[in-house]
Every structure is written in structure tokens, then in C-alpha cells.
């Protein structure tokens, strides 16, 4: 009897605002503890929350991008519980009326399938502070810099069935929030975190199995591994006749397993109720339109355009659109060479990507700018240099030796297209290799490349490859 895993993700994306959701304290990462904790963030008596407009607009932008319903009236509620890093004794969140409801995200999997993942809701809430359990010998230290940082909690329906699909969905959300500029996506700094709800049921069963929640996993790889482990653990337990306990579990990456969090002695009862400090949040059509107008072209639309209008292969389009900065770089190159989409894509995904990777740089910090790359590619297009020579020129550009034209000129790399020069090089190799000539003429076509290579060598690599090919074919007959 086989088992079907069912997975839903709750993603917490930190909204990229300068100040907190309800206070004017900075959200900048890495400050000294408690130096970015305003009166409100430490719950000073008498302080009141005043919401940040930019957080709302970013939530709406996300909602529009997943074709969701934007609530015209939504409510901030208090979620009440005691924990030392929760300064007010409640978290301001949204419960019954979230700002974003019922959206869909199209996810392309690595193996080429398309998943339509329903995003049940996305709501605004504030983050808690940070507990430092190892700060002192017998005490826990508390840093409230994080307290009040705006989060968008993005909740998918439990519609995913493999760890790989769950991660593909998580990556798609990651791409989207970065694409929209609503979240910097920095997982190491905790700006993008994920809780996974996992259950398994008999294949064909309607009812969901008992689920467990894996908390706060902070890398794609660990999410995949944690879910995989949890699925196996649950199946093993069920096959041994054990029941799954509904609980929260933590992933131990070192041991590659999930472990139950210390069970709380009492059940949660969060006593949600509308925050009396915050009247209902009203959003008008004009508010939504203003955000819609400012939305960038969305990754799906752009991917479709690359395939349909530019004729790029699906895989190139997907890779380019995995990161808005990459796609934008590509477009900047393409602007100078509108007929050379494939070459532009090859170079952005090839040389540029490899060089960035080797230097551990993001594309915004590329040492060869999009216009500079475009000038190089223009020299391939107009036949000044070959693609092969261009790679050397690119390396020199990357090393800071200057612009493509300057390097070509300084190194004398201009391609030889002069028929006379090419002809004498061809004649010379035909004369030099009579044995190979005979074999070629006997039918060994593969030797054409040998002659091209030898002739190119004679031309110090600067021969126009198309012309050289044609000439050799003619003369070798």
C-alpha cells in the first residue's frame, strides 16, 4: 500500500522597509543589540502602534502578483501568548481578515512540470525579538532589534506532495518577492524563513493525516531534507502501527533528522481579538491601482515574452527570469542588440554567470556592465572578432583592461575576413598535409575541422570562421 505525503508551507518574508511595521525604529540588520528597539518595540507603557504604509503597499504588491484578492477591509488582531522575546505579551498579526487572500502561483519544477500552488492567504504581522540562550551562564539574553520588523506570512494550501515540489514552490516565492522588491530574500539574515506542515495519507484517501509542523528552516536544501526525513519518519511510524502526534518539530541539520520541540505543558490558546489600538485597515481601489501601476513586469509574463517574442528556449527564459537583476541585465544587453536574443542569453547565462560565480559576486556588482558586454557582442555580430576571440576579450574586460574595442585594437585581434589572406592560409595547410587531404577526399569528413584548426592557427586565431569553413570546403573537394 503506498502513501501520499501532503505538504503546506508557511513562509515568512521580511518586508523590505526602512522602519518597523508599527514604530519608526530601523530594520537594518546587524546592529548592536537593542540599539534599534524604540519605546514601542520594548512595549513601554503608554506607547501605541502606528502602521507603516510601505509594508501595506508591499503586501498588496505581492497579492497582485499572485492574482489574489486584496481585502478592502482587513483587521489587525492580537495574538496573545507569553514569551520573553515577545515584549507586549501579544503579537500584532492578522487573523480573520488578512490583507491578501486566495492567490495562485505557477511553479516550474526542475523536471519541467508546472504546479499551480494555491496561496490561501498572506498577512501582515510583526516579528518578535531574539532570544540568546547562550548569552549568559544561567540566563537568556534578549535583543529587541528584530521586534516589530514587518513580515508577510505567506500560507500555501496543503497541495504539495514531494519535498522537491515544496522547495520548487519555495524558490518561486523567493524569486517573486525579490523580483517585486518586497523582500531582500536574505535567508542567512532570516529575511526569508519557512515552516513546513507535513502529513501523509494512504494513496487515494480523502482525509488528511495528522500533521506535524517543522519550524524555521532557513535554507532550501534543509527544507528539502527536513521534509524528506519527516515524510519517511511518518510513513515508518504509520507502517509500524504508531499514531502521528500533532506537534512542532525542529530540523537538526547536522544529524539530518527532525526532533519534537519540548512539548509545552499547556495547549496554545492565543485569544485572538481585534487590536483596539488599530481601527480597520481600509484599502481603496485607488490604493490598489497605485500599487498595480508601480508593479514590474512579473516573472511569468517575462518568461513567456522571452519564449514567444524573443524565441528563447524555455530553459534559457527560466534561468534568466529566476532573478530580476539577471533578467534586467539581459534586457539591457539586448537593447543594444535587438536581433541577437539568443547570443545575449548565452553570454549572460554563460560567461557572465561563470565569472560572477568564480568571483562570488551578484550581477549588480558585475565587473563587466551590460552596455560593455553589448559592445563586445556587437563586435561578434559585425564580424570583427570571432566568438572564440570574444571570450579572451571578455576575460580581459573582466580583468579591467578596458573596453572591448580598445582590447581588440591593442591586441590586434581584429578578425581576418580578407579573402586573399584566408586563401593563402588555406593553400598553405593543404600543401602541408597531403596525407590528411587524401583521407578527406576518400570520405573522412571529420578531417574538415582539422584543416580549419590548422588554417586558424596560421591566422593566429583571427580568421573569420564562417569564411574559412566555406573556403576549405571548396578547396578540399
Amino acid at each position, binding site marked *: 500500500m503506498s502513501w501520499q505525503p501532503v505538504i503546506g508551507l508557511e513562509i515568512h518574508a521580511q518586508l523590505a*522597509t*526602512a*522602519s518597523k511595521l508599527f*514604530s*519608526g*525604529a*530601523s530594520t537594518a540588520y546587524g546592529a*548592536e*543589540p*537593542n*540599539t*534599534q*528597539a*524604540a*519605546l514601542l518595540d*520594548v512595549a*513601554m507603557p503608554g506607547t501605541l502602534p*502606528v*502602521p*507603516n*504604509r*510601505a*509594508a*501595506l503597499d508591499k503586501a498588496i504588491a505581492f497579492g497582485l502578483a499572485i492574482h489574489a484578492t486584496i481585502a478592502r477591509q482587513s*483587521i*489587525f488582531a492580537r495574538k496573545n501568548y*507569553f514569551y*520573553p522575546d515577545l515584549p507586549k505579551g501579544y503579537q500584532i498579526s492578522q487573523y480573520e481578515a488578512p490583507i491578501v487572500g486566495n492567490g495562485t502561483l505557477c511553479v516550474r519544477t526542475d523536471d519541467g512540470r508546472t504546479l499551480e500552488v494555491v496561496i490561501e492567504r498572506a498577512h501582515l504581522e510583526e516579528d518578535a525579538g531574539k*532570544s*540568546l*540562550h547562550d*548569552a*549568559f551562564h*544561567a*540566563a*537568556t*539574553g*534578549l*535583543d*529587541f532589534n528584530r521586534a516589530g520588523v514587518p513580515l508577510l506570512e505567506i500560507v500555501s494550501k496543503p497541495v504539495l506532495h514531494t519535498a522537491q515540489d515544496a522547495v520548487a514552490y519555495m524558490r518561486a516565492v523567493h524569486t517573486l518577492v525579490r523580483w517585486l522588491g518586497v523582500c531582500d530574500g536574505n535567508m542567512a539574515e532570516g529575511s526569508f524563513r519557512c515552516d513546513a506542515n507535513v502529513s501523509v495519507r494512504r494513496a487515494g484517501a480523502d482525509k488528511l493525516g495528522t500533521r506535524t509542523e517543522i519550524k524555521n528552516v532557513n535554507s532550501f536544501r534543509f527544507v528539502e531534507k527536513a521534509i524528506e526525513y519527516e515524510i519517511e519518519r511518518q510513513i515508518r511510524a504509520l507502517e509500524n502501527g504508531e499514531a502521528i502526534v500533532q506537534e512542532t518539530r525542529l530540523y537538526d541539520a547536522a544529524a539530518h533528522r527532525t526532533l519534537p*520541540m*519540548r512539548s509545552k505543558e*499547556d495547549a496554545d*490558546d492565543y*485569544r485572538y*481579538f*481585534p487590536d*483596539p489600538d*488599530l*481601527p*480597520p*485597515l*481600509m484599502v481603496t481601489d485607488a490604493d490598489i491601482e497605485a500599487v498595480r501601476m508601480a508593479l514590474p513586469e512579473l516573472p511569468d509574463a517575462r518568461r513567456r515574452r522571452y519564449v514567444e517574442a524573443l524565441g528563447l528556449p524555455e530553459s534559457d527564459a527560466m534561468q534568466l527570469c529566476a532573478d530580476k537583476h539577471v533578467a534586467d541585465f539581459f534586457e539591457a544587453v539586448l537593447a543594444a542588440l535587438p536581433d541577437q536574443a539568443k547570443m545575449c542569453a548565452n553570454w549572460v547565462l554563460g560567461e557572465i554567470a561563470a565569472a560572477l560565480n568564480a568571483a562570488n559576486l551578484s550581477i549588480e556588482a558585475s565587473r563587466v556592465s551590460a552596455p560593455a558586454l553589448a559592445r563586445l557582442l556587437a563586435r561578434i555580430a559585425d564580424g570583427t572578432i570571432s566568438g572564440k576571440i570574444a571570450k579572451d576579450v571578455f576575460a580581459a574586460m573582466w580583468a579591467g583592461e578596458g573596453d572591448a574595442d580598445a582590447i581588440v585594437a591593442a591586441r590586434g585581434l581584429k578578425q581576418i575576413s580578407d579573402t586573399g589572406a584566408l586563401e593563402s592560409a588555406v593553400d598553405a595547410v593543404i600543401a602541408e598535409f597531403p596525407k590528411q587531404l587524401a583521407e578527406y577526399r576518400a570520405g573522412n569528413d571529420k578531417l574538415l575541422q582539422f584543416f580549419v584548426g590548422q588554417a586558424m592557427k596560421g591566422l593566429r586565431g583571427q580568421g573569420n570562421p564562417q569564411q574559412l569553413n566555406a573556403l576549405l570546403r571548396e578547396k578540399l573537394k
Partner: protein
Amino acid sequence: MAIDTAIVARIARLARLPIPAQDAAQTAAGLSRVLDLAAQLADAPLDGVEPMAHPHAQTLAWRADAVTESDRADALLALAPDARAGLYAVPKVIG
């Protein structure tokens, strides 16, 4: 409304207010008396009435996204019963 000592214990736990065992029955009786007041709501014709959380039909005002607060860690930490090395300190949280 009968509030028994088990309910008192659960509520007291949620509120982090200790009720000594010997006071539980008295507390339960006191709470029952107050909650009896609320029982009057049960008899009122309120079904279908839209709940009212705020006094006016007010909508939320927003602030612009600007950093307006500066570091006041020293002044705030000085108010704490236990602050060390720039952190607020509490008895070790296990787990």
C-alpha cells in the same frame, strides 16, 4: 456561570497569574459572579448584530516609511530589572 477550579487553573495559567490552590475555589466563585453579569447578554436579542470593536467608523491612519527613532538602548535598559552586556536578561529559557 459556573467556573470550576479546573477552569480557574487553566485561565490563571494562560494569564501567568498564580492562584494558590487554597484560593482557587474562592477565585472561581468570584469569577462566576462577575461572569453572571455577562449571562445577561445571552438572553438579549443580539444574534446577527455586527460586532463593534471600535467606537467610531474610523479607518486606520498610516505613517510614511521613515526611520524616526534613534538608539536609546542605555536609557531603556536602565529600566530593566536585569540587563547585562546590552541585553535584557531573564532566567534561562530551556528548550
